[in-house]
């Protein structure tokens, strides 16, 4: 008996068939309205890239201080190998500058092909260093099919990296925004301005710290505090000069001089990385911590790394926000493979998986309006966890200052509070 | 310099009887210029030459020279002739000179059968042929059915018999005995000594016996050389 026959004999089945038909029609119609995303755009160029990529091994240099990020990259590697025959080797960096130094070293040694780095997770000063020295391959960003899902023209922050134009040399991968988290079982009203933070530290000495600059989260805290303290925030978008640097940053240094003795371990030691603060909060060594990932606290709760009473909040005056990117060095050994990996990492599936607090909990760079209804549902139905703020509660996004500020801040911090103290 | 040997070697360095048995011709072993052993001797097939002397008199060095495992510190001159062939420059494993020590030196990791098979020349080919020779050899020394036994489970007398048989299976053309009976208790000693000597005679092997046991020397009933203390 064929199904068709059944349908003829049984009216109920016939009705079902109609429903399915209408459903199919709807999908066609809906996707017709958003043609950009219904089907991945497959052009001849991309087919050639896929062919060339098959069998390649991509050495993906990515910061590896968080085991959950490592696990996510491992998952992506397995998927890419299964689907496109591209192997991914995650070269685990404790600092992205390690990859930059390797590429520089290869350039110096005259190695213009067969380089050790195929794809690197990067932003800010590291991107600037590579771009200024002509060490990047491309422009290539717009050649990958999933580029369209970003709707880049509407999102300036996806084509500027710490105020530097990306010029198609890197594709955005993830968004970050500075948030604070605290254990609501211990404190009820956390400080929401930098001045309030100082007052709170006077009452609760030793209960807050920040990662050791130049670790990126530590540096990010310096910038976040700078925004909250300096009256000249608008000058941060342009390069720092000898003329304005001292004037703009003076309030930050006097703040730090006052609060450092009130920090955890009296400021004689700092956590070596952002995730290290999770353990400190869980152990009750500190009450307040910072993260560059609004989903991190929920993710940590689900992995037993934080108590379930932890909550996230943002500063009243706004939070530093940026995007991080994927770039291919000029001498990469597996350029095509790297593009295939990047394209997969930008796919709705990979981006939604990244958003899952059980996995990583990092914000997507995709513009949800560009996605099909089914893909959009992946994001909208995601359970973000009790400790994660809804998107509309994340407040103002403060842009990253020009990288020259970062470099000067790190150097001065080191001289005042680091080794040079 | 203190040459210590006995008896003084004859003027004839190479007799016509060297065609058979083991001849040590003007064999002189020196250590740092000092003469340790200097002798000239011939052992006819089936005969036993006994060498006696206190420890430190170079007995074991003499044996190592004949076996071919001398340490380079010693300077050796002269010739070792076995059945008419000069073996002085042959590598040890080609000399066909067997040796038995005070300890039985059965390989502890091999079964009794495998110990015997280790001595059996490779010319005996085929698993079953080799096995048959091993079984026969065991029967010969009254140890039927011992092939798979662990050497450590045998008595001292049994082990001594296996050691002898293992050496004989290698078909040596001369036999050196390095105080081979002193580790055995009195009752066993006579028995094993008789066994070794009779087997050597049967096979017409020239035997060099190193000992400081008077009873061994008497039982050997052959020539006797005394080495003096060198200090």
């Amino acid at each position: 008996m064929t199904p068709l026959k059944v349908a003829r004999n049984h009216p109920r089945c016939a009705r079902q068939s109609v429903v399915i038909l209408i459903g199919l029609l709807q999908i066609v119609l809906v996707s017709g309205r958003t043609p950009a995303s219904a089907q991945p755009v497959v052009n001849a160029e991309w087919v050639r890239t896929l062919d060339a990529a098959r069998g390649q091994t991509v050495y993906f240099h990515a910061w590896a201080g968080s085991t959950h990020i490592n696990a996510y990259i491992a998952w992506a590697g397995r998927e890419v190998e299964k689907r496109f025959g591209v192997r991914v080797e995650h070269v685990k960096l404790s600092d992205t500058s390690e990859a930059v130094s390797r590429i520089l070293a290869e350039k110096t040694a005259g190695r213009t092909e067969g380089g050790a780095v195929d794809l690197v997770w990067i932003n800010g000063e590291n991107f600037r260093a590579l771009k200024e020295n002509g060490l990047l391959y491309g422009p290539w960003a717009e050649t990958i099919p999933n580029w369209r899902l970003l709707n880049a023209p509407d999102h300036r922050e996806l084509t500027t990296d710490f105020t530097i134009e990306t010029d198609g040399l890197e594709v955005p991968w993830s968004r970050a925004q500075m948030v604070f988290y605290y254990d609501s079982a211990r404190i009820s009203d956390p400080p929401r301005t930098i001045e309030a933070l100082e007052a709170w530290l006077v009452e609760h000495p030793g209960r807050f710290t920040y990662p050791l600059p130049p670790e990126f989260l530590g540096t990010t805290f310096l910038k976040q505090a700078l925004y909250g303290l300096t009256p000249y925030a608008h000058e941060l978008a342009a390069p720092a000069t000898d003329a304005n640097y001292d004037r703009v940053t003076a309030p930050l240094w006097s703040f730090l001089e006052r609060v450092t003795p009130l920090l955890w371990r009296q400021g004689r030691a700092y956590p070596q990385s952002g995730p290290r603060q999770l353990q400190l909060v869980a152990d009750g060594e500190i009450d307040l911590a910072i993260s560059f990932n609004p989903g991190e606290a929920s993710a940590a709760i689900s992995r037993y790394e934080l108590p379930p009473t932890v909550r996230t909040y943002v500063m009243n005056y706004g939070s530093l926000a940026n995007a991080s990117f994927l770039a291919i060095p000029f001498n990469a050994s597996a350029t095509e493979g790297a593009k295939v990996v990047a394209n997969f990492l930008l796919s709705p599936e990979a981006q939604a998986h990244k958003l899952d607090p059980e996995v990583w909990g990092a914000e997507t760079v995709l513009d949800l309006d560009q996605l099909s209804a089914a893909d959009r549902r992946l994001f909208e139905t995601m359970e973000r966890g009790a400790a994660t703020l809804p998107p509309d509660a994340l407040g103002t996004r403060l842009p990253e200052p020009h990288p020259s500020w970062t470099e000067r801040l790190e150097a001065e911090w080191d001289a005042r509070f680091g080794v040079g103290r | 310099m203190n040459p210590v040997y006995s008896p003084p070697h004859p003027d004839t360095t190479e007799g016509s009887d060297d065609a058979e048995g083991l001849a040590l011709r003007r064999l002189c072993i020196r250590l740092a210029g000092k003469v340790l052993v200097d002798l000239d001797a011939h052992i006819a097939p089936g005969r036993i030459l006994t060498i006696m002397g206190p420890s430190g008199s170079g007995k074991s060095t003499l044996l190592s020279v004949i076996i071919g495992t001398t340490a380079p510190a010693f300077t050796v001159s002269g010739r070792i002739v076995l059945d008419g062939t000069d073996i002085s420059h042959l590598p040890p494993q080609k000399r066909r000179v067997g040796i038995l020590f005070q300890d039985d030196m059965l390989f502890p990791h091999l079964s009794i059968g495998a110990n015997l098979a280790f001595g059996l020349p490779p010319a005996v080919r085929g698993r079953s042929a080799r096995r048959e020779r091993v079984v026969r050899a065991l029967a010969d020394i009254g140890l039927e059915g011992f092939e798979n036994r662990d050497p450590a489970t045998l008595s001292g007398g049994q082990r001594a018999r296996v050691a002898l048989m293992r050496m004989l299976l290698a078909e040596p053309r001369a036999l050196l005995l390095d105080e081979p009976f002193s580790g055995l208790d009195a009752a066993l000693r006579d028995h094993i000594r008789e066994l070794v000597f009779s087997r050597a005679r049967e096979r017409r092997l020239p035997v060099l016996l190193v000992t400081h046991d008077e009873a061994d020397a008497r039982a050997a009933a052959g020539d006797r050389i005394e080495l003096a203390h060198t200090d």
Partner: protein
Amino acid sequence: MGRPFWSRPVTPRHEDRSPFRYAPLVMLGVMFVPVMAGLAGTMLPAIGYFPALGGDSISPGPIMDLLRWPGFWRASALSVTTGVGVTILSLAIVILFTAAWQGTRLFSAAERLLSPLLSVPHAAAAFGVAFLLAPSGWMTRVISPWATSWTTPPDVLIPQDPWGLTMMAGLVAKEVPFLLLMTIAALGQTESVKSRVIAQSLGYGRTWAWMTVVLPRVYEQIRLPVYAVLAYAMSVVDVAIILGPNAPATLSAQVVSWMSDPDLALRFRASAGAAAQLGLVGVTLILWRMAELSVGCVARRWAYRGRRMQRDRPLRVGALVAAAMPIAAVLVGLLSLAVWSLAGFWSWPDVLPSSFTGTTWLRHASDLRDPILETVRIGLLAVGVSLVLTIVTLEAEQRFNLNLTTRRLGLLYAPLLVPQVAFLVGLQTLALESGLDAGMAAVTVAHIVFVLPYVFLSMAGPYRAWDDRYATIATAMGSGSQRTLWRIRLPMLLGPLLVAAAIGFAVSVGQYLPTLLVGAGRVQTLTTEAVALASGGDRRVIGVYALSQTLAAAVPFMVAIALPRFVWRHRRGLQHR
């Protein structure tokens, strides 16, 4: 023939030209060439010569730059204080414990614990110690809040205290087992028990008797291992990263971080730092030697007075406590790592987690696969090469009576006396300079430099102690030296062979710096992965990696103990060896 026929040497000459003869040279070459090349690769950039980075003239620039680095003097002082402190403490504990307890059942029990303790990689031990001693660690959890009335962990700077005390504790815990093993080996070569008993019969207390009559001879034997401990503790990097201070870090740790800085100009400063580390270790070793002489002089004067020190009971108890603490710290530390790797939420001051879960292990099972494979590959290769070189050398020594004993043994220790950073930095520079790809092969070569001495030292004793008459008997039965080696000698030495392999493997598993610097970060073993996790501070994952690392080192030991017992289960003569 010019000479009379009877003066021809009677010894066989056919083996004189055998390549075997050169085995000891080859072995020393394998150990020394990388060290020497690496030192050259460090020294040249330290004085400004590094063409690939535009340094083509000799200048004092890098050294001046290093001296201008504000942390230099503190980092150097830290290196000396931790190195000397660790060596004195470890040596004192080992000497006191051996003096007070040698020959007792307790001492043999401690002896049995040594192999497992030695196989624990430094990084894993350091992680364990970190959790024990941290203000939020197990020790404060056990006594809080009932005994301390602390409601939050005390805000004290441990680990990473600026004096490096936590780091010293972690190092002492690992060096005590090493020195104890070396001491026990040395005791075998001295008539220690007889001497002590004679001194006791003259009325000397047990501990003092040992120290006056046995120690001088034992110290002669363990001098080089003591120097190795001093050099190691002064320049260690992985333990320093986990337990050491970070503002500034120790000199070696700082050199490693300069090596990975994007600013390649820092390579000059890193090389100068590595050279400075070498000089620092050299000077400290010379001072140590001078201190040895004066301590010996003072001790002889004491001994001449003839005081008997009969009532040494408190001293003996103190020695026991002092020896038990580091051993317990390592074992309890490992246990804490195991608990963390299985922990659900675990807040302070709970002594145990509120729940247990296997999810951390499950989540990382697939990530563990590659580093485990890499660890095993490198370990097997390094151990294989080391074993072959060792056996060929020992066999050559045997066959040609080459004298490679005590005097030249010092050479074996030489790579262990050179601080690792001093030549590994240079090896990376050479790789960069020559454009060679630093991969697994290069890492394996660097591992062999450290594995070979341990394999040789642990194999040499049993190999030389083997009764030569077995070989004579075999030869007399017509067996060539190859056949004797394979059929008789090696099977009989199966146990020691496997133990040497296990020791070598454990050494390889624990190597951090050779893997990181020579592999240029691209070769990832369990150790590099575990240390990389240190900054994240995720104790659950650290537990998983540190335990995996410990198991990788410990499993070969279990095999080395179990396999000979199984293979020779029907051979009583080979048991209880």
